[in-house]
């Protein structure tokens, strides 16, 4: 059984690498599958090939990824790079596409470590060319050194926004303004969570340093911005308008980078049938899991930001914990050993988590944005469905996300609902008075990433008639 592994890890970021390095010590047949050409995930993207100068610009936290990468390459884990996972099921079958060929791997234990994605937040004009996720922009910068030529505007809410801004600044990119869209009420509600956050004060200090650096560089930081709109002709952005200090303002720009925090990339866990819950504090869906990373499905584990957003360090610890759970389930260690071996990682993970309640409250996305208050705004980009059309469908008696999907095709496009699932659930909840959890999440419909008819037809080549 060439295609069988005792453990398959999906994702080569902080959590996946840490899981692989941990499990590799236990004489198991292990594979790590990653969609990128090189390991590192989003946070440590390009870690093995980054030139010294750019590595320095990206900072020490980024360079920490080197040690994980080195340990991974010393292990004898089978590594599938540039490989898409298009399906995982309860039988432990993992559908992959590698080199344009689809095949099925099987595994006794699977760790899904698919990390986070930027939170899609529809707002007027978000689909215009020239409006881009700040993280996606940063990916271009990390891996290819691609930088925008003209002055750009950064807008949104989230701890990464400042980091992204300083990274752009270091790279010599002109920033016209930074629009902070976290609200002042957020900041009030966040204050009670500050004492706990001080236990991880280094993160707060880092944040303040970033802010100071931007101010010193003369970049205007506008706080409490709301009502952001991207305006343009011919599907291309030429300006933005927004409200600041009770005044309506307009900036001309041909590049708007937006960032509204990150959410777990749940499309595999959703497709395989893991149970999910809506987390009010993180404002996103999360696969339900226990302290060992176990989901409701036997042999399917979750690790890292794909389970809940706690950052790269916490992802590394959680990868270790899930790996040891898999090692335990495979009979290589006993319960007592599992307990002992995971203790330090659990403690460190808890420490990492300290700052999160504060950050989550401080940077919470406003309701107006979550429910796409503007009726004209496209929510489903693939099928071109507006917020108004979704509200209309709710009023016509379609009272959960899947009924909305049935009736107006929201979430049926190639993105499989990645862009619209949150907005649709929030709209349904707001219109019906249900909780977001009750409004529900789209049922997974594999393949998670498209495969061709030809690839599917040749899935089992040796058995072809």
């Amino acid at each position: 059984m060439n295609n069988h592994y005792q453990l398959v890890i999906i994702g080569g970021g902080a959590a996946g690498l840490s899981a692989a390095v941990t499990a590799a010590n236990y004489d198991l047949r292990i594979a790590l599958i990653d969609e990128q050409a090189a390991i590192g995930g989003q946070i440590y993207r390009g870690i093995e090939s980054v030139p010294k100068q750019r590595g320095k610009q990206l900072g020490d936290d980024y360079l920490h990824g080197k040690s994980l990468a080195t340990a991974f390459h010393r292990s004898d884990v089978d590594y599938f790079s540039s490989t898409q996972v298009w399906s995982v099921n309860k039988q432990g079958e993992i559908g992959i596409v590698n080199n344009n060929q689809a095949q099925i791997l099987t595994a006794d234990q699977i760790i899904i470590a698919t990390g986070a994605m930027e939170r899609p937040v529809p707002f007027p004009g978000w689909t215009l060319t020239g409006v881009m996720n700040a993280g996606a922009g940063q990916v271009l910068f990390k891996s290819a050194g691609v930088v925008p030529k003209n002055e750009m505007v950064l807008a949104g809410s989230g701890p990464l926004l400042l980091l992204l801004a300083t990274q752009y600044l270091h790279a010599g990119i002109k920033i016209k303004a930074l629009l902070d869209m976290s609200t002042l009420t957020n900041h009030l509600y966040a204050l009670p969570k500050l004492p706990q956050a001080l236990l991880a004060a280094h993160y707060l200090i880092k944040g303040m340093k970033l802010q100071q650096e931007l101010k010193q560089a003369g970049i205007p930081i506008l706080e409490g911005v709301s009502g952001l709109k991207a305006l343009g002709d011919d599907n291309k952005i030429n300006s933005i308008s927004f409200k600041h200090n009770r005044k309506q303002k307009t900036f001309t720009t041909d590049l708007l980078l937006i960032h509204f925090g990150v959410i777990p990339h749940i499309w595999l866990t959703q497709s395989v049938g893991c149970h999910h819950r809506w987390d009010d504090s993180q404002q996103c869906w999360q696969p339900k899991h226990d302290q060992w990373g176990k989901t409701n499905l036997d042999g399917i584990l979750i690790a890292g930001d794909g389970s809940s957003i706690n950052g790269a360090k916490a992802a590394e610890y959680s990868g270790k914990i899930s790996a040891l759970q898999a090692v335990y389930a495979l009979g290589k260690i006993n319960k007592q050993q599992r307990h002992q071996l995971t203790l330090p990682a659990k403690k460190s993970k808890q420490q990492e988590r300290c700052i999160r309640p504060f950050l989550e409250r401080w940077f919470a996305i406003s309701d107006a944005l979550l429910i796409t208050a503007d009726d004209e705004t496209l929510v489903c980009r693939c099928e071109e469905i507006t917020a108004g059309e979704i509200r209309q469908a709710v009023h016509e008696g379609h009272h959960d996300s899947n009924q909305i999907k049935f009736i107006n095709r929201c979430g049926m496009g190639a993105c499989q609902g990645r862009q619209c699932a949150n907005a649709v659930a929030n709209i349904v909840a707001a219109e019906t008075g249900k909780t977001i959890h009750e409004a529900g999440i789209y049922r997974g419909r594999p393949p998670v990433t498209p495969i061709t008819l030809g690839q599917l037809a040749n899935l089992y080549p040796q058995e072809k008639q």
Partner: protein
Amino acid sequence: MKTEVLIIGGGLIGSSIALQLALRDCQVTVIEKESSGRHASGVNAGGLRQLNRHVAEIPLTIEAAKLWRNIKELVDSDCDTCFPGQIRVAENSEDLKKLQQRQSLVKSLGYHHEEMITKKELYQLAPALSPHCVGALICREDGYARPYHALTAFRHKAESLGVQYSTDNEVYRLNKLDNVWEVRTQKGEFKADVIVNCAGAWANKFAEILGEGVPLTPKTPMMMVTERLPPFINPVIGATSRKLSFKQMQNGTLVIGGAYLAKLDFQQQNTEIDWKKLSESAQTVMALFPQLENVRIVRSWAGIEAFMPDNLPVISASSTEKNVYHAFGFSAHGFQLSPIIGKIISQLILDGKSELPIKAFDIRRFLRSFPN
């Protein structure tokens, strides 16, 4: 709460019956354990097919087709219907012989909706088809609709006529007291004079309560859909000796079925795609449309549907209790029949008999003593 007729199951069949009863001024309540169209009614292929039906279904399918033609008159919506014809292709002389026999049979019964066409006409109608086909059977009036849209239209029309839907409400028990049915549900007790069982894959639970359990098997036909393509084929394509249902929707996506079954955990209501079988389904598509090799599949799914051993539905009065009727077990071809089923059951309830022949669908055919 008291109602004249209580319908168990808010899918398309239940909604069609509710609508027809409401049109005749009946007071109707529909109890649905999840949301309307959650299973087979919402996720089927939407085929409006008269072609190649069991002979017992022919009188029904022809009347149903008339209703679909003017569906807007019935439900105030066209349900996104279109009628480009359905074709069953012959890929070799053996297939051709089977189709000719079929056509003779239909003709001998006095029906003319199924026609043989030559290879030449086949390729005029479907030039995209692989060149090896030799002829086909066609029903030119056939087509398809969008199932969830149809269901919604039926439900809305029924509701506009006063039908009450109680969704997310499971029926637990049926009890008869002084000719009134007491129906115990998750959301309390309902009372009704008449009960109709349209519970689809879950219908046998109620047949069993009534002491007339049937050999119903829940099965899960898989479907897949591709990315949007430029228009390249109009009619719905099926094959004679392969499992295939293939059509291009108005938005350009290809919808591919073929009754390959997914894995099913019925207790959990959980379906899981069987990649080995779906791969066979893709091989079938490759055989008839090799040019689609690089077309991307964006979604696959399976709905839970009730299958009977003879692949014929149960449409009949109960054999054990008065004022109880069944309409279930459509074995993956109930969508097209649904408007006429509403008429038939409403006639059984209100007139004591149906205008159309329904003996073949009697629930008693599964009892040993029932004469065939």
